[in-house]
């Protein structure tokens, strides 16, 4: 009993302190992420009754039936088409809009504010908004096309327009986020580089593609990853509100299929298997991000 003991206790305490402070985070992560994730893996090997009171072990049967299910494969295909077109169009469009907004023209602040507005709208509200605009009978879009071109389209209930509408609405929704990042990146490019290129006599096309685009490549890379994640995983609300995955399952993507199987048809085991598949998709994207992102992207 003396100074040494007090000293030792303090040392232990100091070592423990960081863990103690991290405790609340750990508890929350374990409770809300690791345990459910584990449960998801576990359930994916079972056939579970509606109220979860009966379950049979079925091995990988859930996975097998998913990969032989025409509808599931269709949803994978639609996920690819939807994600690819949303991401590519959104990235290029936002880059160009950011270039324009970066110009020093009077009122550019007002344009910026207007362009950013969709970002403040939630996915569900955005879906509802486009649902109203594209309504075949009372919607503004059809009103205008009828007046100017004399055509009426069932935007949300026919192929391929349901997919077009969905992709268009999603791009509209994700655009502002990308623009903000591009704008910040563009403003970070030093004016000397640009001026030097002008003196060297490059035209603006070369300047944009050979100098500016490579300089913002870290942002492009980050945005591509974020857009893939958001259009794969956060598209549920917009699909649910706009097309409900229709017509005939045409606009059902993987996350919407998961929702239908899990929460409409109460097939917990099957939905868990779909969840695990999405988990692996996520892992691949993340690994790709860390590995490829460090190596290839040009950082200033």
């Amino acid at each position: 009993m003396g100074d040494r003991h007090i000293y030792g206790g303090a040392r232990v305490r100091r070592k423990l302190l960081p863990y103690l402070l991290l405790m609340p985070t750990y508890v929350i992560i374990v409770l809300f992420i690791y345990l459910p994730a584990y449960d998801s893996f576990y359930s994916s090997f079972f056939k579970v009754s509606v109220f979860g009171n009966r379950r049979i072990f079925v091995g990988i049967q859930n996975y097998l039936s998913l990969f032989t299910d025409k509808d599931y494969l269709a949803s994978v295909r639609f996920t690819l088409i939807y994600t690819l077109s949303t991401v590519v169009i959104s990235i290029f469009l936002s880059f160009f809009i950011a270039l324009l907004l970066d110009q020093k023209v009077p009122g550019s602040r007002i344009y910026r504010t207007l362009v950013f507005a969709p970002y403040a709208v939630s996915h569900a509200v955005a879906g509802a908004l486009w649902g109203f605009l594209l309504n075949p009978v009372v919607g503004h879009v059809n009103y205008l096309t009828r007046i100017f071109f004399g055509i009426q389209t069932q935007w949300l209930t026919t192929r391929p327009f349901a997919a077009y509408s969905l992709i268009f609405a999603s791009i509209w929704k994700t655009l502002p986020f990308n623009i903000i990042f591009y704008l910040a990146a563009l403003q970070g490019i030093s004016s000397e580089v640009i001026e030097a290129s002008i003196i060297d006599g490059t035209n603006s096309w070369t300047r944009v593609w050979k100098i500016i685009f490579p300089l913002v490549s870290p942002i492009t890379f980050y945005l591509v990853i974020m857009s893939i994640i958001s259009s794969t995983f956060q598209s549920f609300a917009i699909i649910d509100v706009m097309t409900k995955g229709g017509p005939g399952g045409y606009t059902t993507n993987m996350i919407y299929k998961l929702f239908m199987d899990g929460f409409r048809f109460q097939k917990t085991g099957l939905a868990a298997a779909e969840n695990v598949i999405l988990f692996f998709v996520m892992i691949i994207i993340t690994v790709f991000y860390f590995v490829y992102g460090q190596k290839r992207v040009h950082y200033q």
Partner: protein
Amino acid sequence: MKKVLVFLVVILTVLSFAKTKIQFWHAMGGWRIEVIQNMVNEFMKLNPDIEVEVQYVGSYEEILAKTVSAVQAGTPPHVVQLNEISTQKMVDSGVIVPVQDLVDKDPSFDVGLFLPQVLNYYKVGGKLYSMPWNSSTPLLYYNKNLFKEVGLDPNNPPRTYSELIEACRKLVKKDEKGNVIRTGITWCLYSWFFEEYMALQNQPLVDNNNGRTAKATKVVFNNQAGLNFMNLWNTLRKEGLMINTKRADWTAARQLFISQTVGMLISSTSDVALLMTESAKQGFELGTAFLPVPDGTPRGGVIIGGGSLWIIKQKNQAEVDAAWKLVKYLAEPGPQIVWHQATGYFPIRVDAIQKLQAEGYYKENPHHLTAILQLLTSVQNYNTNGAIIGAFPEVRDAIETAVEKMISGTLTPKQALDEAEKNANKAIKEYF
């Protein structure tokens, strides 16, 4: 010792005065939230020892999903309102208290006063599992002013498919550029109408007497009766006589009718009250009629749709008793009449209908009468009692998906039926 006794007495008195708290989850949005709250408030006034927490939880599907998670979490709600197609699922669930068990123990409650048309749907193997509550059937609504305008007899609505198609053709109106600005009919894209049309032709939807004498093993709608309705749907679509909505978009279908973009609407009888007010606002006269049948087919009947009240098992028997009291109250003639008048859902009891009839209510509200007559004149057999299938949501999805493919032109009516049959059978087989 004395102190302990006093303490115990105090605790017991407090406990005996404590209110039993129960939860009631329902799916009736909009103005009906208030209607239900008021009915429950009345109940609490009569039963001061029971406190009911009423919650509008969202759609029937959401209630089911939330009930499943609440039961698994060990905090089940007491009374939940679920749609008719959840019946088999709930019977199989093992988490409910069958209403029949409570009825048998309660001499004050006479189930014989209920309409057999309603009771027969919710009885499985002769046993009543849930309390019928909000019951409706589809009904044909039409715009009498538009009928007059195009030379149709507003007092003679179409009774057969060919009369229906003929009326639709007359209702079409185009602008100078040739765009259709008004057309015949709409109903929302919902499998319920398909099921109703099987019963209307006196045909079952699934085998084993619609799943009522043994569990259903396959669907039996891929026949002439099924084809009749699909052909009608496809013809109306091809000729531009019908506007199709998104899946289960009841609001869109109603809007089309209220805005007079279509002259006719097939929708639930629970829309009667709403359509009466809205048509008056828009300045047109509302007409209601029985559903038209395929030419030359004898009329079978309509199936009860809507929802019923389920009592979920509880650890505390007092809570089950309180839940039963609430359910019993909501099915009494008084609340049933309030509910009927506010919405258009049927009063599900003979004595409630008699009371309304005696008061002359149906003379002033002919549309409510059409709805009831269509139900009362329905043939009563397994076909019109409605199918019970564990995998009913999947079967509906199969039918709706096939219909969507048919109206987008990728499948013919026959192919659509084939595909719906295949997917529905797969779902029935996989049900667990």
